Each structure stands twice: as C-alpha cells, then as structure tokens.
C-alpha cells in the first residue's frame, strides 16, 4: 500500500543549528506512528515542515502520492493534513462549537463572502449534525457554547483535536497533546485519539514525551535525536535499544 506521507532527506538549518539532518520517514494510511526524542531533537520542526509552516532547506515531502513541496500551509490542510499544536493555537473569542464550524466550513470551502452577504451562512441541519458528532466524539458536547477563553488547558487540547478532526484529515499531526495535562486527562485524550484513528482509518503522527501515552496510542515509533532518526520500530523493541536509552537518559553513563 502506498504511504500516505513520505519524508525523504529533509534538512533544516537555523541560527547555526542543524535542526533536521537528512530525516526520512514514512507513514502508511491509517497507521499511528509515535515520534519521540529529547527536547530540541527537531520534532516540532519536522511537523512545521510537513504542515507547511517552515520550508526545509533540503529534501522533499510527499503526501498522498504527490509532492507537496512549495504548497502553502492552508492548501496542505485542505489536502488532508490536520494538526494540533504544542503551544495552544485556539481562537479565544470563539465558542467550542464555532471552532468546529469554522473548521468544517474551511474544509468544505463554503466560506465565500457572497453567502454571508445574502445571509446564507446560518448553520444548516446536516452541518449541525456533523458538528454535533465531532463534539460528541471529543466529549465536549456539554461545553459547546462556552467561549474557549474560559476553558482550561486540557479542554483546549480537546478543542484543537476536535477542530482538526472536523477537517476529516487523512493524516493528523499531534504535537505533544499531553503536555500540561495530568494523568487522567492524558488517558482520556489518548483514548479519543486511538478510537478516532481506528474508526476513521486516519494516519496519526504523534509527538509525545509521555511514553505511557505513546505506548497506548501508536503502532510504531521513530526516535529522533539532534535532528537525526536514530531508531525506529515497535515501541518496546526500540526502547530496549541501548542507543535510545542513552539519547533519553543521557550519554554520561
């Protein structure tokens, strides 16, 4: 089966630091891959290259069988690359429901100005159904009409997830979804993620420090250290490798 995402030899340099050094990896459709590694290993930079926020200095990214180098970020989103952020990027003034509606409409391309001017931009029943389904999925139905500014961090992470899911991505990039969450929150987030991935056959690339969450959520992990892939394979096998433990627990031993 063709890979949904193939990254080949991507490199990024900034400020005298080689953030990514000829990184290659691929994700099959419907597969969940964990991307782990110490802080500063280049995980978020790699995400930025995939979602189009940063242009790599070398290498190429192929999504769903076509090269997406040079495709602007918003078009990549329309192709089916969804994303959540390590530092929250929610829209404080919108309610939870509005987040989903915005995502839904951006995805379906119904944001034309003339619709607004003819007052055609009310929420239609079938749209309402889809929005409710998403809210239900991420467990935010009871908070639908609360402005996101009034919500806690954990809830905001769910809002970001729901918003990304409303775009029906073929690939979801989840950047440290558990950071700042406590144990229970992390568990429920991992569960939602796993359920959605299986039900929708959506590929997931997960950056995460909480190895427990990674273990629960992915089929395979890739270890990144100082901009390079140093190992990949099944979770327990990879973690047993001495090189990986070293990169994590320090090279001093």
């Amino acid at each position, binding site marked *: 089966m063709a890979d949904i995402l193939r990254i080949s030899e991507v490199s990024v340099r900034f400020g005298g630091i080689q953030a990514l050094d000829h990184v290659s990896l691929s994700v099959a459709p419907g597969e969940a891959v964990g991307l782990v590694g110490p802080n500063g290993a280049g995980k978020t930079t790699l995400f930025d290259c995939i979602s189009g926020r940063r242009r790599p200095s070398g290498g190429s990214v192929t999504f769903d069988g076509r090269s997406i180098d040079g495709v602007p970020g918003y078009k990549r*989103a329309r192709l089916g690359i969804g994303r959540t*952020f390590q530092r929250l990027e929610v829209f404080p003034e919108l309610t939870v429901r509005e987040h989903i509606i915005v995502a839904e*409409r*951006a995805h379906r391309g119904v944001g034309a100005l003339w619709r607004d001017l003819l007052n055609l931009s009310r929420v239609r029943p079938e749209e309402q159904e889809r929005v409710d389904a998403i809210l239900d999925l991420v467990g935010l139905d009871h908070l639908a009409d*609360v402005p996101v500014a*009034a919500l806690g961090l954990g809830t905001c992470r769910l809002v970001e997830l729901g918003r990304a899911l409303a775009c029906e991505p073929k690939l979801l990039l989840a950047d440290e979804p558990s950071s700042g*969450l406590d144990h229970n929150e992390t568990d429920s987030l991992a569960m939602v993620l796993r359920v959605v991935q299986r039900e929708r056959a959506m590929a997931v690339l997960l950056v995460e420090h909480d190895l427990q969450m990674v273990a629960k959520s992915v089929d395979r992990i890739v270890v990144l250290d100082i901009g390079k892939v140093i190992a990949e394979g099944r979770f327990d096998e990879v973690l047993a490798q001495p090189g990986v433990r070293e990169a994590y627990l320090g090279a001093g031993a």
Partner: protein
Amino acid sequence: MSTLLGYVLPGIPYGCDFALMAVGLVITFRTTGVFNLAFGAQAFGAAFVFDLLVRSEGLPVWAAFVLSVLLLSPAVGLVLDRFLFSRIATTNMTAKIVSSVGLLIAIPQLLPILFGGSPRENPPSLWLDQAHVEFRLFGTAVNGSEVSTTVITLGAVAALLLFLRLSPAGLEMRAVVESRRLAQLQGIDSGKVAASAWALSSVMAGLAGVLLLPLSNVLNPTNPLQFTGLLVAGLTAAALARMRSIGVAFGAAIGLGVAQEVLELYFPNGALHTASVNAFPFIVLVGTLVGSKSLRSLGFRADPMAGVDPPPPPPSVSIRDPRLDVPMKWGFRALIVAFVVSGLTWVPGYWVTPLDAGLVYSTIFLSVTLITGASGQLSLCQASFAGVGAFAAGQLAAHFGLPVLLGAVVGGLMAAVLGAVLALLAARISGLILTLLTLAFALMADTFLFQYSWSGGSGTGVSVPRPVMGSIDFTSNRAFLVLALVVLLLCILLVALVQRGTTGRFLAAMRGSEPGAASLGINLLRARVTVFAMSAGIAGVGGAMFGSLYSPVSADSFVYEISLAFVVVVITTGSRRIEGAVQAGMSFAIIQFLFTYAPSRFQGLTPILFAFGALNYAQHPEGMVEYQKSRWMMRVSRLLARVDGRRGTAPTALAAGAAGNGMAGGVVGGSAPNGAPGLAGSPVGLSSGVVSPRG
C-alpha cells in the same frame, strides 16, 4: 558638473534634517523597542517651547536650549516611560503603536492649549543665521542655517554612535530591548535602563526639533503639518536601515535629501516634476517596506525569557444575559425612530449639521470596526480611502453628470480596489510593517495623490453636490439626515452580515491564531484582501457622504492625521462592535460641535480626549467605553442572577458558563487547580485575543 554639485550640496542639509528624524526613530526603536511615531510630535513640542523661551521670555539661545532640550525633553521622556511605556513593555507591537499614535495626536494639540494658538513667524536659529551666507563652495552659496544643521547633526549622530557602541549604558539599553528578564539576570536594573533610554530618545527629539526650526518660516501650533515631508523621509531612511543601523539610516537620509534635489535638477517643472520629485520617497519607502526580508521579521525576535511571564489575561468575553437581548433590540429601534423624528422636527437647525456629521463619521468609522476590530489589522489610511470616495463622487458628478449616490458607489468601489491592492502588496508582511505601509499610503495620498486637479482639485477643492432622487431633494440638512441614516444602516447591515457570517468567524479565528487558522485550510491572504477591500469600500462611501455634507472638500479634509484620529477615536470607544463605531461617530461629531463654543485655543481638545483613551489600549484592547459597558453588563447580569436565585429559577447565561467551566475541569480531571470563576475566568496558557497576539 558644477551644476550637479550645485544641487548636491544644498541636498545635504535637507538630508541632515531627514537624518535627525531617521536616526531618532531608529535609536528609539533600538533602545526602547517602540516604533515611536510621535517622535516628530515630540520634536515639534520641544521646538515650540524653545521658540517661546527665546522670543516671549527673552532668554538667551543657549539657556532656552538647555531648558527645552536638555531638561524639559528628558523629563517628558521619563514621564512617558513611567506612565505609559513601562506598562506596555511586554505587550505586543500593536499596543505600542496605538499608544504612539495617541501621543502623536495629543502632543501637538496640547501645545496651543498650553501656550496659545497664534502662529509664530521666523523662528530663531540655534547657532548660525539663515540669512547670512557663510561661505561659497564651488560657486554655491552656503548659508548659516545649512552650516549649523550639517555640523550639529554630524556631531550629534557621531556622539550617539559612540555612545551606543562604547558606553556601558548604550549596551545595556540594547540588551534591555531584547529581553528585560535576561538583562535582569545580568544584574541590570531593566526599569531604570528603559527610563533612561526614553530620556535619551526625547533629548534626541528635542534636538531635532530645535535644529529643524529655521527650516520652516512659520511655526504654527494648530497646524504642525510642516513635519509631513520629514516624517516620510525619516520613515524611509529608517526602513532602509532595517530599523537597526544608525549609520545606514544616516547615509540613506543624506542620500534621500540629495536625490530629491537632483531630481529637481532633471525635472525642473511640469507633470514629470511633481510625479518624480513627490513620488520618489514613497516609491523607496513602499519598496523597502514590501521588499525587505529583514523588516518582515522586525519585532518578532522572541524574548528568550518570554515563558517566564504569566499568560496574558483573557479577553473580556461577551457577557450579556440573553434576556436583555429583546429589550435592547427594541430599545435600539425606538432610539432610531426617536432620532429621525427629532432630527426632522424639533431639533434646532444648527444642531442638525453635527447630527448629520455624526452619522457620516459613524459610516466611515465602521470601516475601522471591520479592519481593526474584526481582522485585527491596524490601518492608518482610512481617511485617504474616504477621500478617494469623496473626490470620485464629486469629479464624476462634475465631468460626467453621474448622480452623486451612484458616484458614491463607484467611489467606494475604487477605494475597495485600492484597499485590495494594498492588501496584496502586503501579502507577505503583517503587524507593524503593514501598519507602516498604510501610513505610507496615507502620506502619499496626502502629499501628492490628492493634489491634482483631477483628484482632490487644486485650491478650491472638489464640490460634491447633495443627491437629488427624482422628487426627493436631500439638499437640506434635515433631509440629508435621513439619507445619511439609510446609508449608515446599509453599511451596518453589511458589516453585521460579515461579522456574523463565515467570513467574520474566519477573521476571528485569524485574529486568535494565524497558525491555527492556516492549519484548518483558511486562506489567510484571501481573508485579508477581502476585509481590506470591504473596509476601504465602506470608508469610500462614507467619504462621499462626508463630501456631500461639507461640499466643497479638498485634500485638507483627508490628511493623514485625520486617519490617525479616526483609528484612535474608534479604538477608544471600542473597535470590536458595530455600536462602538456609531458611538464614536456621534460623540466625535457632537463633542467637536460643543467645542466650537469654547475659546479657539481649546479646539484641539476633541482628539486629545480620545487620544488619552487610546493610551489605555494596552490595558483595555476592547476600548474604554466597551470596557465600561461590559462591567455594567456584568453587574446587571449578576443582579438578574440574584433575582433569579431568590425566585428559585436557574440563572441562564452566566450560570451556564460557570457550570460549564466547572465541568470543563470535571471531564478531564481538573485542569485549572484554582478554578476560574465565571465566564471571565482565566485560561491557562492561552494567547490573548488582543489585536495581534503574535506580536
């Protein structure tokens, strides 16, 4: 050759004047982190005081210089730092620029109030006399003021360069701008350093002002427009220096001065002259703003210690109890009816014009609501768009006999196209640089686009007739009231549809987080072009109405300060909501009218009133009036909730929010340990919804 030299040489003192401004902007930016648009205003203030001391108080020139430049100016700088800029040190670029715009408006208007408003002719020179020819160079006479300007400028710039390069204080200032926190870790008292940077920058402004005095033959406190050309050249040189290098700023300024003189040589007169000589600085300025890669990331250098600051407070969320909706809706409708009936009947004639003006201003201000409130971009050229609308309507009526209302629509469309072009030019830039681009456009319209007989009409201005539709004649002010109201309501409808519709939500998303919006597939550029075009269009239509009300209108009605005043007024009342624009428009017109009863020196108080509101922008980005309103709404809601509590029914909106908040914790296990009370609760790590959260 010697002819060329004859033009190059006089270019140098001009260049020096530009250099003072440019270097001042760069230094202020580097030592305080603020792009101080009010630098010119500060210079003007110091020059004014200097002149006053010399001629009214009879002080010797050196004493006046010490008092005005070395004592008063730094004192003003310290006050500005203490009460304004130190409070917004860690906020975004937009807050800083709004504050400096507020100052730019307030300072020149304060002067006539303090010292009287009569123009003063032939202001004194600091050192050598202008009338006296000092020496001849290659056959060109060099007068005293040229010598003194050049020498003092060179000396001041060299001293500043040495100070910043070599003295520990200069080093500390640069460090504090980059990161207050990191500087503190090195044992530097960041607050003190920032204060002295403001004092220094103000001395620089004072020096610039006093040196520039002989340049203008008349020092007119009520019309400090003399500084416009200076502002353009200063901006250009500062932009060419990427707001960093003092040397480049200086060189670029001299180059601009010389280039302007040389252009005079090659295009001594005619259309080419105006086009080339006047357009030249703008072409360079716009080219630099749009093209420079390093300007694009200006002010975006992340403070390495940014994570230390607690998350910014959440934006005040709409907190109206839904049960108030119906009474307020009907109240609003009743108000409109009462307004029209009163305007048509019992209101005395001389009060009708300000009411007309209020409606027209409200229309124009709606454009600010759209662009600043909805999309979070700060545009400083809305009055220019209004001018485009007014002149188009007038010219089309005069030359093609087009009905005025149709002309207004065409004018609005023309402004919209201009707005779209501006937004496309700004495709890759945002924040401060975009704001500067709009300012450049305003200055360009001001200094030459509106100066042609085919645009702003030279001299007499353009007359925009009052519309006549069949048997309905809007010539009388009372009839015009109805027309202005209809136009305003149509524009309100337009803005409301956009705000409530998908576009509005996309814009709100963009304002909240650009990366977040892009990750959903929202085309940020398209959204921005749309909102710029619509906003410009509304301003254009409003401008045509303005022209029709006050016909004839000339370029003077749409100068760049008017644009600044517009933005400041709307931001003060509240740029987020439609009623903010209407309140701003009505109160602006009415207060202005009331001040016609006051002595003439107090005429400038209207903008000052609003300018002080803008200075609070950093604390209350939603606007002062809006802030007060939401406080009252909170009170009413609480009162309603208490009444409900006594009756035993469930309080609706507020309680639902509070309960929701509680549940938010419950679902995922108590994410905010201290709990956040009510809807105004505090999120953790949220970027605030201020105009530009990225700044």
